[in-house]
C-alpha cells in the first residue's frame, strides 16, 4: 500500500481500444481494490462526503472494501445512490469527492470513483438477490423522463412506499445514459441492470410515451397521480448557424451519439445508418465532444479533430476523457473556431473552414475572452462535422403545459426543493439547470423525492 500513489486503473491499450466499443477501463481486481481502500485514512473530518452531490458515506464503503466485505460496501453506496455502477464510471470525481480527499494534499487522492465502481460491479456479478417491493403507502407519483434524475427520484420514492410510474419518450429507458454516453464508457448492460433493480422495487417504466403529446401533465393529475417530477433533460441541440451547417454530413452530437449508442449504428446488424467517415471534425470541448470524437475514431476514422475555441488548458471535459482521447490519437485544434462548412458537388461536407483565436481581456467571470485573429483562416479537410457545442432544455413540456414558469434559457424554474410554479409539479436535473452532469441530476432527483413526499403527506392532512 503506497500512501502517496494511487493504484492505477487497468485499461485496454489505446490503439486497440480505439477500434472497438468495449469498455475502456476494465476495473480493479479484488486485491488491488483492497490495497487502494487501505489508503483511506478514515479521517475525522471526512471532507469527501461533502464533495458528493448525493452524500454517499464514502469512508464507510471504503472501509468495507478494505475489510474484504464487498457486498456490504455496495449496500452502503446504494443507501444514497440509485445508480452506483453508473456514478463510479461517469462522475467527475476529480472535481468532487476526490478533490477534497486529504490524501490528495501531499500525493494522489484515494481513488474513490474506481472503488465505487468496483463495489457496484462486484454486486452485479455476484449477488443474485433483487430487492422486494416495499410496503405500499397508497399514494401515486409520476416521473417524466427515465434519465439519471428521473430514475433516482423514482427509486427513492419507491423505497418510501410510493407507487411510481416513469414515462419515457424513447423506446428504451435510461435517457442520456443510453443515448448520450457511449458503450465504451458506460456499457448498456450495466444501465439495464441498474434499471432492473429499480423495477424490482416496483417502479413502473412506460416507454414510448411523450409527456406533452401522448399525455399532458394535467392528464397525469386526472389519472390520479398526486405529484409529478419533470426530469426531461436538456436534449435540444445547439447549432452555430454558420454557412454550410445543413450540408449532408453535419450532425448535432445528439444525433451522432443517438445513432451510435441508442440505435447501435456501429453494429452491422442495426438498421440505422451512419457514415464511417475517414476524417471527422468535432466542434466543442465538453464530455459530449470527447464522446463524439472517440466514437468517430472507433467507426474507423483515420483523422479525428476536436476544434475548440479556447485554449487546451481550458477544455471543460472530464480530465480522464481528454487524456483517453489524446491516447486514442484524437487531435486537438485549440484556439480555433469554425466559420463555415464547405461542400462538394454533391452537397456533402468536404472541409470545415476555421479561424485561429487568441485570448484577450478577461470577461466578468475572469476568463480571458477568445477573439478571432484576422486573416488566420484555415481549412481542415473532413467528411463529417459534429456540432457538440451544448444543449438546452427540451421545450416540449413547457410549450404544452400551462402555469409552468420558465427562465430565458428555456429551463423550468424550480426552487431549492425542486418545486415549480405549478402546484404539485416538481422539476430537476438538466431541464432546470441546462446541461450539467449525471450526478448533479441524481442529487436533484433525491431532493425532489423528499419534497414530493412532504408535499403529498401535507396535502393528505388537509
Amino acid at each position, binding site marked *: 500500500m503506497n500512501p502517496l500513489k494511487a493504484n492505477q486503473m487497468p485499461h485496454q491499450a489505446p490503439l486497440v481500444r480505439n477500434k472497438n466499443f468495449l469498455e475502456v477501463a476494465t476495473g480493479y481486481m479484488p486485491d488491488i481494490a483492497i490495497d487502494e481502500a487501505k489508503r483511506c485514512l478514515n479521517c475525522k473530518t471526512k471532507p469527501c462526503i461533502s464533495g458528493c452531490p448525493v452524500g454517499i458515506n464514502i469512508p464507510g464503503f471504503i472501509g468495507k472494501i478494505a475489510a474484504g466485505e464487498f457486498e456490504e460496501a455496495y449496500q452502503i453506496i446504494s443507501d444514497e445512490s440509485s445508480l452506483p455502477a453508473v456514478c463510479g464510471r461517469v462522475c467527475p470525481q476529480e472535481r468532487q469527492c476526490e478533490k477534497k480527499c486529504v490524501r490528495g494534499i501531499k500525493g494522489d487522492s484515494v481513488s474513490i470513483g474506481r472503488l465505487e465502481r468496483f463495489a457496484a460491479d462486484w454486486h452485479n456479478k455476484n449477488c443474485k438477490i433483487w430487492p422486494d417491493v416495499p410496503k405500499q403507502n397508497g399514494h401515486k407519483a409520476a416521473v417524466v423522463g427515465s434519465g439519471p434524475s428521473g430514475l433516482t427520484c423514482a427509486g427513492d420514492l419507491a423505497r418510501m412506499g410510493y407507487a411510481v410510474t416513469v414515462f419515457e419518450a424513447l423506446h428504451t429507458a435510461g435517457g442520456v445514459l443510453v443515448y448520450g454516453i457511449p458503450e465504451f464508457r458506460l456499457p448498456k448492460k450495466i444501465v439495464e441492470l441498474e434499471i432492473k433493480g429499480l423495477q424490482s422495487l416496483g417502479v413502473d417504466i412506460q416507454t*414510448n410515451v*411523450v409527456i406533452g403529446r401522448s399525455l399532458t401533465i394535467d392528464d397525469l393529475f386526472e389519472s390520479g397521480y398526486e405529484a409529478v417530477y419533470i426530469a426531461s433533460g436538456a436534449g435540444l441541440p445547439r447549432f452555430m448557424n454558420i454557412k454550410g451547417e445543413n450540408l449532408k454530413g453535419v450532425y448535432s452530437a445528439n444525433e451522432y451519439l443517438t445513432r451510435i449508442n441508442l440505435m447501435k449504428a456501429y453494429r452491422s446488424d442495426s438498421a440505422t*445508418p451512419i457514415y464511417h467517415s475517414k476524417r471527422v471534425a468535432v466542434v466543442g470541448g465538453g464530455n459530449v465532444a470527447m464522446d463524439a470524437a472517440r466514437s468517430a475514431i472507433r467507426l474507423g476514422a483515420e483523422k479525428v479533430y476536436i476544434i475548440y475555441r479556447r485554449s487546451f488548458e481550458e477544455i471543460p471535459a472530464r480530465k480522464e476523457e481528454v487524456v483517453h482521447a489524446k491516447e486514442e490519437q484524437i487531435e486537438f485544434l485549440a484556439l480555433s473556431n469554425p466559420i463555415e462548412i464547405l461542400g462538394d458537388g454533391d452537397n456533402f461536407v468536404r472541409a470545415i473552414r476555421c479561424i485561429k483565436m487568441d485570448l484577450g481581456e478577461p470577461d466578468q467571470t475572469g476568463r480571458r475572452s477568445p477573439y478571432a485573429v484576422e486573416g488566420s483562416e484555415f481549412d481542415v479537410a473532413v467528411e463529417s462535422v459534429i456540432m457538440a457545442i451544448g444543449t438546452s432544455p427540451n421545450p416540449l413540456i413547457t410549450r404544452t403545459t400551462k402555469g409552468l414558469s420558465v427562465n430565458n434559457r428555456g429551463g423550468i424554474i424550480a426552487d431549492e426543493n425542486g418545486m415549480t410554479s405549478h402546484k404539485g409539479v416538481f422539476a430537476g436535473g438538466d431541464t432546470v439547470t441546462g446541461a450539467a452532469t449525471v450526478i448533479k441530476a441524481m442529487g436533484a432527483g433525491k431532493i425532489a423525492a423528499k419534497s414530493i413526499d412532504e408535499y403529498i403527506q401535507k396535502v393528505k392532512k388537509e
Partner: protein
Amino acid sequence: MYKIIKKEKLNSTVSKMVIEAPFVAKKAQAGQFIILRVDSNGERVPFTIANYDREKGLVTIIYQIVGATTHLLDQKCAGDYIEDFVGPLGNPTHTGGYKKVAVIGGGVGCAIAYPVAKEFHEQGAEVHSIVGFRTKDLLILENEFRGVSDKYLIMSDDGSVGEKGLVTNALEKLIESGEKYDLVITIGPLIMMKFVCLLTKKYDIKTVVSMNPIMIDGTGMCGCCRLTVGGEVRFACVDGPEFDGHQIDFDEAMERSMVYKDFEREAKCNLLQMEVAE
C-alpha cells in the same frame, strides 16, 4: 409491443395498417405523425396518422413500400406486432377560418392530405382536391376524397386515369378560371410541393406544406429533421411538420433527404437478396 389489428393493400406499393395504440389514438389530430420501429433492431421511422378511433384506441397509417424498413413492415399481418409505436408527434393542422381551400395531394401524400381535406370539409369549407399519381394502379382513396370534396380532379403522368399532366397544371387552370382560394395545402413528393409553391407564390396564395424529412427521435432532440424556413433553422418534428411553403428551402430539403441513399440501396439489396436499381 403494439398489435396490428387490420392490414390492407391499397395498391401494389401502398398499404394501410390499423394498429392498437391507445395513447396515440386518444390524442391524435390531423397533421400529426407517429414514429415506429418494426423490430428490436429496427430504425425509427415517421409515418403520418391517416386516421384514428379514440374509443377503440386504434391508429391508421398508410405507407408506401420504398426500402428495407417499409418492406419489413409490409411483411407483417393482422395479429402480428410492431416493436415500438409512439405519438402523436408534431403540431396538428390549423384548420379554422378558411372558407375555400385547395388540397393538392401527390402519390402516397394523398394519405396525409385526406384527413386534412376531411377536417376542412367538416368545418364547412369549400374543398377542391387535386390528386396526382404516376399511373392508374397507384390511385388511392378515390371514394374517400370524393366524399369530402366539392371538386375532385385526378391527374396522372401517363394519362391512364383522369387527365394527363401535373397537379400544378390543374391548379393553375382553376386559378386562371377565377377560383379564389384562401389557402392551398399541398402534400406529396418534395419536388411536387416545390412546384406547387412556386405556382401559388405567383398568385400570392397562402400555402401550407407537410414536410417529411429523415427523423430519429421526433421530439426535438437531434436536429436530423432540420429545414431552413425563412432563412432560419426549424425542426420538422417540433416546429412542423407543416410550414409556410413559400418560406421553405426545398432544394436543401431534397438534398438532405437523400443523404443515406447508398445505405438504403444496400439495405434493400441485402433484404431482398438481389441487386436493386434504386
